[in-house]
């Protein structure tokens, strides 16, 4: 199919030289570059775009501005796309939504015949009893609920976020917004103009404020040109400000990016939504808002119909009729809801074009072609009272009905900011007040409708913003507009119904009234019971008639009734916009790539990536056993750079360490290390490490991998109170570290270290030394975590990879091999060493986990000392014990329960098969009565089976520590 277009200057957005072929509902069409999907379809006389949610009624465009749900279509990879906003592209394929069969012949349309059996709140009232009935209905209801289908093979697109900062942000680039931007920019401030549509000008771009539209076009051209040539005004088109947050924090979505905009001053010039008139069949394709018809002509050069009727409650409808006539549409009548003539000039203009004017009348019913596919005529009646018509019917054949039932301010952003909506009976309209500081309002959203006054209001709002910034001492003059653009009561119930208040949810006038009759008097309850305003258009067109209907039915004023709460987002936004480009920082040690080159299986440890073991994952147990055995028999090396490192320096360093950790540190000799346990104020063990004394006033203490930041934070917090003369410095990233462990460790070290006496006497167990390794400055400690002769070597992290290479090369004669975290866990388990947070939990005090020896009870204070004293004085309920099982027994997993009869007395914290011990070994919390070596504890393993493990004394391996103290 091909389309014909109106001549220029109609068609501001289209490029007539660029035809685009596309497909909708299985048929091929041709549109133009610049078209939306909907405009291209309407240019091809394709009006039926979707089916309504509840009754599957045929629907066509209503606003042509992305403000309604009538144009939601399905793209191959995206449901619920607004066809009147989505730009047409070559080869685009779109489908309708919410039908059974085909869009044109929808079997679901039969639901419309059942309308009276599906009253408001039907689901709430029907499917909750008898008990269990929901389970029967759920499958059916879920199938019919929802719109469109998600493509589960969809490849996620790149979305991200960006921050932007401006002195003044203006939301809406209509005449008020453009003028406000120009006024603000004269002061030299940075200005951002945010416009939802793809062109500047707002109503100036489609509505004719003068008889022939010439002056309107000139005004738009002048304003746009000035804005575009002003360097300190940034313009964002196709951008939606989706919320207002405190201090003018504005999320603006444009394309795949969410801009997080900060503004010192914000001016909302968001305009007003033209409203529909409520009458029977007001949802037929071919019935649209006056502004939508104007957009179709002005933006897309699409002639919206051949024979039109205009139904209006204001003078704007007269302009629409004149514009339609000028573009070759036969305007059969202008039907004015108002009893009096407001603009003799416009009435005269209609008369000159021989367009009949019917005053104080309304369309009572729209007449449809077969299957409600399109409008074929209207039944016009004289208005006899509020919402009432007389019996005399005038039928006019037409294929287009343009309606304007007044305007509703685009209040959402302002109400999010705390503005108050009040209804004026005189103007039959809502207005906004009580704006927070630094938020301003201008134009039709402020109830100003005459163009000259709209421009003046833009100046006023911008001047007010400049005054706030100290850039103007002018007193902005208040702008008032007395024009009444809303008819008093554009709602005309019909005995046969189908006069829709909310198109999204197929809600009729009687549905709203019935909700109040059932006791839901509050507007918020009416919303939740009837679902009015809960659809995609979020009450843009239903809020005003609903407020009027509820107020009338409950005998209250419209102000008292109000509208429902407006919350962000203003427009539907994708989770991808909220997520953005997800930042997931990770940390790698200096040796990371060496691990990968050696075949390591990496495992996460907080944000760190650590080698678990080296070799294919399918043989995990083999590698763990081999690596552990190698450390026991030869020598291995493990990257321990992820351990936290904190320097404590200054005259009070020893006193500080003495207060932070449970052990005594005042008399720790320089050149010695000491185990350091950190308890919190509740006396719970929360971290441990090794503290080396480098000098009288200098300690270097390690923490667990995951505990570094928390320990550092606690240290600085405590010293904020203690005011000791120390510097606390987190050097975790500044140092790389390895542990060279095994009977041959000293031989390897001797290859590389010349300036330190490595003999057992010169560098004994638990000693600290400084020297160089292959020329690299190093801190060295004799440690015993894995239970073998071991050296922990710390070097500045830039040297970490070189250190690794040196050790692997020097260790070749002794077959040195790397071992991973899982192998280390087995080795330390054999030695009975705990891992804080694996073998401890949120209640573990030092006595429960065998760390009494690491607590100095003679010193006056350490963090948590009082709680430790109290808890250790109480009868102990559980104890961390070692247990063993035969090698062929089911292996308990960490977390498996320890039972005593029917009572849970603890859980397994660590468990692994040990080749060295020839069986399964582990640690678990058990009842104190079961903690004696030789006792048996009962562990429930996978499958519900219970195994009886023998409690043994710790450590499992090398009880006299002979090997680590070599």
């Amino acid at each position: 199919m091909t389309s014909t277009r109106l001549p220029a200057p109609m068609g501001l957005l289209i490029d007539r030289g660029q035809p685009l072929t596309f497909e909708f509902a299985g048929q091929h069409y041709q549109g133009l570059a610049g078209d939306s999907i909907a405009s291209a379809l309407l240019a091809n006389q394709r009006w039926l775009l979707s089916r309504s949610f509840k009754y599957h009624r045929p629907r066509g465009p209503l606003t042509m501005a992305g403000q309604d749900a009538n144009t939601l279509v399905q793209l191959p990879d995206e449901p619920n796309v607004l066809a009147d906003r989505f730009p047409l592209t070559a080869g685009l394929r779109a489908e309708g939504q919410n039908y059974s069969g085909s869009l044109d012949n929808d079997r679901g349309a039969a639901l419309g015949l059942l309308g009276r059996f599906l009253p408001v709140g039907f689901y709430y009232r029907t499917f909750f009893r008898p008990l269990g009935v929901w389970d029967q209905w759920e499958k059916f209801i879920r199938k019919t609920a929802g719109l469109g289908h998600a493509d589960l093979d969809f490849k996620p697109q790149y979305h991200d976020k960006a921050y932007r900062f401006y002195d003044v942000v203006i939301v809406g680039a209509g005449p008020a917004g453009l003028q406000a931007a120009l006024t603000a920019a004269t002061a030299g401030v940075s200005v951002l103009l945010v416009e939802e549509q793809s062109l500047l000008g707002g109503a100036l771009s489609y509505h004719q404020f003068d008889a022939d539209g010439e002056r309107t076009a000139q005004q738009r051209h002048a304003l746009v040109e000035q804005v575009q040539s002003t360097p300190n005004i940034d313009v964002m088109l196709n951008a939606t400000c989706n919320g207002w947050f405190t201090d003018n924090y504005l999320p603006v979505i444009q394309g795949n990016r969410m801009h997080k905009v900060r503004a010192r001053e914000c001016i909302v010039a968001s305009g007003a939504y033209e409203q529909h008139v409520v009458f029977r069949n007001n949802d037929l394709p071919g019935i649209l808002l006056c502004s939508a018809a104007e957009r179709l002509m002005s933006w897309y050069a699409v002639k919206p119909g051949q024979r039109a009727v205009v139904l209006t409650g204001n003078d704007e409808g007269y302009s629409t009729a004149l514009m339609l006539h000028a573009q070759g549409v036969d305007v059969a009548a202008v039907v004015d809801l108002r009893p009096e003539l407001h603009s003799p000039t416009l009435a005269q203009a209609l008369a000159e074009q021989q367009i009949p004017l019917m005053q104080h009348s309304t369309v009572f019913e729209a007449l449809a072609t077969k299957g409600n596919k399109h409008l074929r005529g209207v039944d016009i009646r004289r208005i006899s009272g509020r919402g009432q018509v007389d019996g005399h019917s005038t039928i006019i054949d037409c294929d287009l009905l343009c309606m304007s039932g007044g305007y509703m301010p685009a209040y959402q952003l302002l109400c999010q900011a705390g503005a108050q909506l009040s209804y004026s009976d005189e103007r039959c309209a809502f207005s906004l007040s009580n704006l927070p500081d630094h938020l301003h309002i201008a134009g039709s959203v402020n109830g100003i409708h005459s163009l000259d006054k709209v421009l003046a209001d833009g100046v006023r709002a911008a001047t007010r913003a400049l005054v706030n910034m100290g850039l103007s001492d002018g007193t902005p003059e208040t702008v008032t507009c007395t024009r009444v653009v809303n008819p008093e009561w554009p709602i005309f119930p019909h005995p046969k119904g189908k006069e829709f208040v909310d198109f999204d949810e197929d809600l009729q006038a009687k549905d709203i009234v019935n909700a109040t009759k059932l006791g839901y008097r509050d507007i918020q309850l009416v919303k939740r019971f009837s679902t009015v305003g809960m659809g995609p258009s979020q009450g843009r067109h239903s809020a005003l008639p609903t407020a009027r209907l509820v107020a009338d039915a409950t005998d209250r004023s419209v102000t008292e009734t109000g509208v429902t709460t407006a919350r962000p987002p203003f427009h539907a936004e994708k989770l991808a916009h909220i997520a953005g480009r997800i930042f997931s920082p990770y940390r790698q040690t200096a040796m990371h790539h060496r691990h990968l080159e050696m075949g390591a299986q990496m495992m996460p440890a907080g944000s760190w990536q650590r080698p678990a073991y080296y070799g294919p994952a399918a043989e995990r147990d083999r590698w763990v056993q081999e690596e552990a055995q190698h450390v026991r028999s030869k020598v291995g090396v493990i990257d321990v750079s992820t351990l936290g490192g904190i320097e404590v320096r200054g005259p009070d360093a020893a006193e500080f360490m003495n207060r932070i950790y449970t052990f005594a540190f005042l008399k720790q000799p320089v050149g010695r290390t000491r185990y350091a346990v950190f308890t919190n104020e509740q006396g719970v063990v929360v971290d441990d490490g090794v503290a080396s004394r480098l000098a009288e006033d200098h300690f270097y203490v390690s923490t667990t991998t995951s505990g570094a930041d928390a320990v550092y934070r606690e240290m600085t917090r405590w010293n904020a109170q203690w005011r000791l003369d120390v510097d606390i410095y987190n050097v975790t990233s500044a140092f790389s570290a390895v542990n060279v462990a095994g009977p041959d460790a000293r031989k390897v070290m001797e290859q590389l270290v010349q300036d330190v006496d490595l003999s057992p006497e010169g560098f004994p167990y638990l000693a600290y030394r400084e020297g160089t390794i292959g020329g690299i400055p190093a801190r060295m400690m004799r440690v015993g975590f894995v239970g073998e002769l071991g050296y922990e070597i710390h070097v500045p992290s830039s040297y970490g990879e070189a250190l690794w290479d040196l050790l692997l090369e020097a260790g070749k004669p002794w077959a040195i091999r790397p071992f991973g975290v899982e192998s280390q866990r087995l080795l330390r388990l054999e030695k009975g060493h705990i891992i804080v947070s694996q073998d401890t939990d949120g209640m573990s005090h030092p006595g429960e986990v065998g760390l009494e020896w690491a607590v100095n009870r003679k010193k006056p204070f350490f963090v948590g000392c009082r709680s430790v004293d109290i808890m250790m004085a109480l009868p102990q309920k559980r104890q961390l014990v070692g247990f063993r099982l035969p090698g062929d027994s089911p292996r308990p997993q960490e977390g498996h329960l320890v039972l005593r009869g029917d009572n849970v007395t603890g859980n397994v914290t660590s468990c692994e098969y040990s080749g060295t011990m020839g069986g399964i070994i582990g640690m678990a919390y058990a009842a104190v009565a079961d903690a004696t070596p030789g006792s048996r504890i009962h562990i429930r393993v996978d499958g519900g089976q219970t195994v009886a493990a023998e409690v043994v004394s710790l450590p499992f391996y090398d009880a006299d520590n002979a090997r680590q103290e070599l």
Partner: protein
Amino acid sequence: MSQIKFDTPTRTQFSRRSPIYRQQAGALFGERDGAAIALQVSDDESRAQLQQGALLDLSATFRTGARGRAASQWLTQQQLPLPAQANQSVTTGDGELILRLGNSEFWILGNPLRENGALARQLQSAPATAGCYPLSCQHSHSWFALSGKCRSAVMAKLCGVDMRESVFGSGALAMTSVARVSAIVVSHELQGVPVFSILSDSTSATYMWQALLDALQEFGGSTAGITSLLPAN
């Protein structure tokens, strides 16, 4: 002024290495302060590319720091100009960058275009007196430089601080979060080229490098070596 050696060492010739040297495969390397630094990453890089948008790894360059109540006094004795206030930086006549991170914390960054051995020896260690403690920022932090007119827009995708030229001009410094990693961002000039220096946790250097490159791509930026800073280019 410039002292770049074109002796093309391998990336791993030195024991001290940049945490992201692997990210610059194929680059031509030179020595800087005892470590390899990328001189040239691609054949066509130039100062024009720096204007377009470029990311440079300066991690090899010498840097140190001192903090404590006596730190400013000691640094002043070393004839170093100090920023008057926290969150500011100054560039010395020799192209070194002095950062003031707080009232009592200072970082000294060497000139990436010359050897900084003399400065390193001068600042080898702070005096062993209370109130002046040396800092290991050479190893704890990577040092990247982001150039180009787009640099504020690039940072706007990663960081919540307003870094437009008008509010974050030369000398400004922010300790903030960049792509969810703690970082120090400094606005200054390198050989007359406006840049942001970004100093962040060296263990997250690969992540940070990739996040910056990802943000830079939109503007046609890429990686570059330090020779692109030379006026001849």
